[in-house]
């Protein structure tokens, strides 16, 4: 291989090293963007929906307590608001099933909520339930807690996935940065190696050739330099050697 190709190979290798590192970093950075979007789309919406459902349940529970106290109008108004809010949250969660097995959690919330709903759909004011704390604690509150537990399970599932996605995001960030760091260190080491080769195979021989010719001119000392390579430098050394030998014999 000729000198030009050798030097060119060095620069090409350096360029490839940096270029690929750059491309991988760009790819990973774009992935980070996708992951952030995924985080928002897949989990954040569901977490928000579970928050809405929990608020709605608390409202409905307050409404039941108002009914127990005999405040029919206020109680029914609060329960209606809670029910509407719950439906909104439930619908949002239902339309955002993005995790494997998430639908089962939502189905369970639906079933538990239907049971709970039957508790307050039937009249409370003016029946034996009015002012009945035992009924509230043993029946209404137990069913309320069951729906709440199911909603929290959905919340937990989404939070867990969100944590995993977040951790993956951290890894992705590292994967975006590391090729750059490796490329920088690699480029420094490679440059040192490249410089060593340039020095060993080109700079030192040129200095030695100059010194050898100067010594031949001034003292007539034989030119004894040899070459390790068969490239232009090797041929140059051999040519000078032959030329000087011919001059000596003349």
């Amino acid at each position: 291989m000729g000198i030009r190709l050798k030097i060119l190979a060095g620069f090409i290798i350096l360029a490839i090293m940096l270029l690929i590192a750059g491309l991988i970093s760009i790819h990973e950075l774009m992935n980070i963007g996708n992951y952030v979007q995924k985080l928002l789309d897949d989990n954040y919406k569901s977490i928000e929906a579970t928050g809405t459902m929990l608020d709605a349940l608390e409202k409905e529970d307050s409404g039941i307590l108002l009914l127990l106290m005999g405040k029919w109008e206020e109680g029914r108004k609060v329960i209606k608001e809670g029910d509407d809010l719950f439906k909104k949250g439930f619908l949002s969660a239902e339309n955002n099933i993005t995790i494997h097995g998430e639908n089962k959690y939502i189905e369970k919330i639906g079933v538990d909520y239907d049971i709970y709903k039957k508790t307050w759909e039937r009249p409370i004011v003016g029946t034996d339930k009015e002012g009945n704390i035992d009924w509230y604690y043993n029946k209404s509150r137990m069913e309320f807690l069951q729906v709440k537990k199911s909603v929290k399970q959905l919340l937990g599932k989404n939070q867990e996935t969100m944590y995993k996605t977040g951790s993956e995001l951290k890894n992705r960030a590292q994967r975006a940065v590391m090729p750059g760091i490796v490329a920088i260190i690699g480029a420094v080491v490679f440059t040192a190696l490249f410089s060593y080769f340039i020095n060993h195979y080109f700079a030192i021989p040129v200095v030695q050739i100059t010194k050898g010719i100067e010594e031949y001119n001034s003292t007539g000392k034989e030119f004894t330099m040899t070459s390790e390579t068969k490239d232009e430098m090797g041929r140059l050394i051999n040519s000078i050697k032959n030329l000087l030998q011919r001059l000596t014999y003349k």
Partner: protein
Amino acid sequence: MRIHVISRYVGLVLLFNAIFLFLSFLVSVFNSDAAVYPLLYSFLITFLFGIFPLIFVPKTDFISKEEGFFIVILSWLIICFFGTLPFILWGGEFTFTNAWFESVSGYTTTGSSILTNIEVLPKGMLFWRSATHFIGGVGIIVFAMVVLPNLGHARFVLLRSELSPLAGSNFKFQTRKVLHILLYVYGGLTLAETICLHIFGMDLFDALLHSFATIATGGFSTKNLSIAFYDSPAIETVIIIFMILSGMHFGLLFATITGLSFNIFKSSVAKYYVFAMLAGIILVAANLYINGYYSLPDSIRFSAFQVISLGTSTGFANADSANWTGFARMILIFFTLQCACAGSTSGGIKVDRIIIFIKSIKNQVLMLRHPRGVFTVKIDNNLVEEDIIRNALVFIVLYVLIVFLSALVLAGFGVDSMTALSASAATMGNVGPGFGEVSSMANFSTIPNAGKWLLTANMLLGRLEIYGFISLFMLKRWR
């Protein structure tokens, strides 16, 4: 010392690594896993650094002894460094220290891991992790085949540092033929084990990676529970057989297969190796059974696997031996120190040195009775030269001293004494798991970073049989 010549041969080693990085990349692409880019970039960097010296530096006809040494030791250090690339680019549990630990552990066929959850790694990364075992084992042989023809007198020096001085004395073949034999035996065993494990229910990918780990006496598994994951006596039996074979002198295995007269059935080293492990299995099994740990069949099953796994420096596990009795653990520590035969890929003091040591003690006792007597050490009717005996004895002393000192330093870092001692012995012997916090079902993640660096130095010392590694730091003495 010609740095450019050294760089050419180190470049060849890097190219050999690049082949396996490319294979890992293909595995990753085939499985569409997330390790594609880390493996692709690691391959490119390794390939470019490997090919560059070959462009500049012409082939050399002669390599001096010093250069030979330097090529071997530098190759080990540089491949370990380049081996960290896929890990650090992957991230997760791999900090630079952890990646270095995993890489050195892989190449030196130690098999200790810092990973708390191996199963989350993508297949491409798992392949690379196990490939480091394969490279560490077979790579030495292939490398020597490429480099040796240019070495002149240095070839014997290089062989001594790569294949154990004891192995060289046992071979009765020409150097190049020896290397071909090692390659055939290595490849044959890997293929045979992969097929056997697949037949007994392990999927082909896992079977191949476990074969890489067994034949290299490494110990990296694809499962967090190691071989215990499969809970299969058939798989355990296959691995036991191949662990025993991998711990034997590969030349002797070849001689046995090809029907030569001097084979494993006639070698006193092989006999001691098998009988010592048999005695260990019986003692551990009896101890476990008497103390009510397992039923008799299970006691035999678990003790056989664990004794052979540590006794061959492999490090697979089918039970958590850290919970066993002190007696059983002490026997396992003995095998962690002794390990298998010279001429195999196993680490440790090696059976051959233990035999020389025992015979030397016997001679010393005889010398007390007959001060003017001339006593020699013979193995299989072959006289063991005085320098080999001296070398073996100094090696044992140095070995134990290094294990003790590194355990002391580890304890200084706040590691408990059992963990410190067993971790030092396990890494020095390239065995893998120890006891305490680094037991067969645990990992090395809890060891402080400085401790991890110390243990990787142990692994390299053990792999290069101490002298090779120390030589690097005594360059002035060479001049």
